[in-house]
């Protein structure tokens, strides 16, 4: 298996240009998300969803304007994947979590399972969609479209371990420069999702950016459930094999 790959989104470098949103859509052929003026600063796409896989939040505060590009966290313990009954969601060789649109039957179990509210069903086709970390590009050795486009390298892509080290150093430097509010979000392997494959450097509480402060995987006990599924399937597979034998 390849190294675990991830995103480090450093919001101190974000200029809110939304290149990530557009580059993602162009590469992944994601439809538009409607034309609604929301009067929420410069944000008119609202949140991550089936048709928005990168989302730039704009937070207006007294003396500053925070911008941050949100994305699927590609959790170590991914509830969406755990609850998927069809195998549409799977973990890739890069340790990312991807939905296979040709397998997804639109049951929607994954949607409430996600502690971040990322994965979502698309009205038009009923299936579940989210960031794939450009799985097809990764297989060709390319970086994801959003990270490639990002003009200021607020979005950084690479081996997760390297990104974690780089992020720690960045926080230390910012602290030394007096930006004591700088903190990482989602990088800790001991957190509620076992560490996110996409983590962030924030300048305020996660809630300020619309991120849950302490997300917990909704399927902590699912390892057990998988074993049960295996036993049940064994019986079914035997029956099916018999059918095929008869036909051949």
């Amino acid at each position, binding site marked *: 298996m390849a190294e675990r790959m991830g995103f480090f989104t450093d919001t101190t470098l974000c200029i809110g240009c939304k290149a990530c949103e*557009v580059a993602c859509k162009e590469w992944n052929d994601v439809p538009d998300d409607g034309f609604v*003026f929301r009067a929420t600063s410069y944000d008119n796409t609202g949140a991550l969803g089936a048709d928005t896989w990168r989302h730039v939040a704009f937070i207006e505060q007294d003396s500053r304007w925070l911008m941050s590009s949100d994305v699927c966290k590609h959790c170590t313990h991914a509830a969406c994947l755990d609850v998927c009954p069809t195998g549409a969601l799977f973990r890739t060789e890069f340790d990312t979590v991807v939905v296979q649109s040709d397998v997804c039957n639109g049951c929607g179990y994954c949607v409430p399972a996600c502690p971040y509210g990322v994965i979502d069903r698309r009205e038009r086709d009923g299936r579940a969609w989210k960031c794939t970390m450009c799985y097809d590009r990764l297989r060709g050795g390319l970086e994801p479209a959003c990270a490639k486009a990002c003009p200021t390298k607020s979005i950084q892509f690479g081996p997760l371990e390297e990104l974690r080290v780089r992020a720690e150093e960045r926080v230390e430097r910012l602290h030394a420069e007096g930006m004591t509010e700088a903190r990482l979000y989602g990088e800790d392997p001991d957190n509620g999702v076992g560490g996110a494959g996409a983590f962030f450097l924030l300048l305020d509480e996660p809630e300020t950016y619309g991120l849950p402060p302490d997300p917990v995987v909704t399927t902590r006990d699912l390892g057990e459930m998988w074993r049960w599924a295996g036993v049940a399937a064994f019986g079914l597979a035997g029956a099916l094999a018999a059918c095929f034998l008869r036909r051949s």
Partner: protein
Amino acid sequence: MAECHPVGYQWVMEARERGAKVFHIDPRFSRTSATVDRYLQIRAGTDIVLIGALINHVLTNGLDFREYVLAYTNAATIVSEEFRDTEDLDGLFSGYDPESGRYDTTSWAYEGDTGKTEEMSEGDPRHAEAAGSDSYGARGAGSTATPPTDPTLSHPRCVYQILKRHFSRYTPERVAELCGISPEQFAELAEAVTANSGRERTTAWVYSVGWTQHSVGVQYIRSAAILQLLLGNMGRPGGGIMALRGHASIQGSTDIPTLFNLLPGYIAMPHAHRHDGLDHYLDREGGDTGWWGNRRAYVVSLLKAWWGDGATEENDYRFDYLPRLTGDHGHYATVMGQIDGKVKGYFVVGENPAVGSANGKAQRLGLANLDWLVVRDLMVVETASFWKDAPEIETGELRTEDIATEVFFMPAASHVEKEGTFTNTQRLLQWREKALDPPDDCRSDLWFYYHLGKLIRQRLGGDGIDRPVMELTWDYPEEGRHRDPSAEAVLREIGGVDADGRPLASLRELKPDGSTSCGCWIYCGVYADGVNQAARRKPRGEQGPVAPEWGWAWPANRRILYNRASADPEGRPWSERKKYVYWDAEKGRWTGPDVPDFEEDKPPSYRPPEGAKAQDALAGTDPFIMQSDGKGWLYVPSGLADGPLPAHYEPQESPIRNTLYGRQSNPARRTIDRPENPYNPPLSSRFPYVFTTSRLTEHHTAGGMSRPLPYLAELQPALFCEVSPELAAEVGLENGGWATVVTERTAIEMRVLVTGRVRPLRLGGTTVHQIVMPYHWGYGGGGLVTGDVVNDLSPIVLDPNVYIQESKAGTCDILPGRRPRGQALLALIERYRHG
């Protein structure tokens, strides 16, 4: 810059990471403001007060880079004793004619030059109507490269002393009172700018149309030029004044101008009342010293490129084939010509004036009065569809059935469906390869004009008026299934060839005798060695940071202009840290990572012999080689229409009285006093608020290349205004609701974004509210999202030097709710007009 040039902004972000301190000065708190060290909110239209105060700060405290200033600027030059400053005449310079609203600039000349510049510039008042060319700023024939000077800078008429006196009233107190920037904020800025200038450090200024779209736009840039010259920040790495231009080849459109007053390479179009034959034209259109002294070679080579073998010395190289100007033939004058029925046919090519130009109603009334209109674009932009969906149809001012204009919409090829060069904001030409053929009827503009030219020639005869067209060189190789003319062949013509058709290597090879031809002298060498130099793509990893082998920059592939100034008068780097181009005494050459913007073998010790011409008249210590004296001009003795120095004047429409001078607005500004173009009165209580227009990252100009795209339209789906919570409370505006903004031109509606990013400005005892509106929306244009036209609010009032409109500062009223429809809208405007 983050807002409109995000990818260029990566370098600013990187500089900040490396310790650079970045200020953002803007009426609007944009995405740039959010990512800099310090944001200074300024009242729209007051930047000269701020920059003037910085200049005053430098002069008063002796913070100028004295060695640089003495050697490289005209600080020591003595000005004519006829000159009177705004200090003497309460806001006017000498030479003002109140009747015409124009200056006779004779008295602004250097001592000893007065006779020459009189002949050169405003001697004929009719010429004052035509925007000047660059050569026009070179003082005039017969002026010497060494005007009288006082190197002690103490002569009362030397530029340095004139400057000191002129800017003495630009104080931090005035900045607070007029700009709304506190003395503490000003002090921080002044400290940063001066501490980061000198031998070891440089400061750069970056601007966009927020500085140019004013009735004093050119003088904004002039004020920055003065400051940068005083601080020694020109011609050096990390210095300069950078125009961030807004369109892919807007620099190229200026260099090879589709502009009325210029021929390619900033050469003046001839003027009926100033020029007779070629010799007369050349005599009057520039000086003999400095590089413009070579202008005969440039003009003759251009005429040879256009009329080929038919252009000979005997017939003045067909100089008589060039049509003559008689005044302002610019965009807004053209629109008035349309309304008056003089302009019958109009080509609009990748432009959308019905949405993008000031006073949209005047634009559309002009379009509705044409015989025929050709619009070439990717989409049916509002300029093409005005006859069915203009706002004037809704109000009843126009009726589709009554509009006689015949309209041809010609679909254009996109940037990937044709090959050619763009010139970017750094003067860098980059060749684009063609990826595929355009679909259906789409064609490049190159195809269109080439084939149109052929069809026109088939229809013309041989009489006098047709000869310039019939004899024009118009024989480019045709390629591909659409018979596209070869763009490389055109670029080759632009880059210049010798008598045998071999591409020229450099503009120094251009000859005044007709043995070379060159379509644009500053681009000479772009096809050197028969190689398309603009197509070079050596990866950045394989060359140094200057990257001289990526594309090709004019002139002569120089990446920093006037880079001789990066070395001291003896040719040594000012410091190791800021080493760039310097004199290698051993090799007897200028050297460095860039191409020297100087004769490569002219030593610092060179002194011109008596009577020398062109570059030979400039010393080895004169870096500003286009100027007739080789000096950076702190004071501009010729070439400007509204003063040799910047002075603050309020915008045409302003709620604030100009407390610096007895003159409210630029005395030389150009107004168009017609019923289609009424102005809000200054200081009017009917129009108490300031508005400024802006752009958003998610859209492009008038929207033709962004509103039809779902991925961009969804990001900013509606026209909105940004207002402060205080103004919202005062007027009754709700976040997410609707507002109507009113001027004497019209009223438009938009959504409301109430934001603490916009703050009321407290100017002395007065509070000024500013309203910010992006201008990307229109009524159609194939847009997935539509909206009212912000430029319908703007008046046509122009800078007198370049005829740019004042879009960045106007006055208005704002009301809660949507605007009235139909006739009721006209009634609302009438009520405001008669207040």
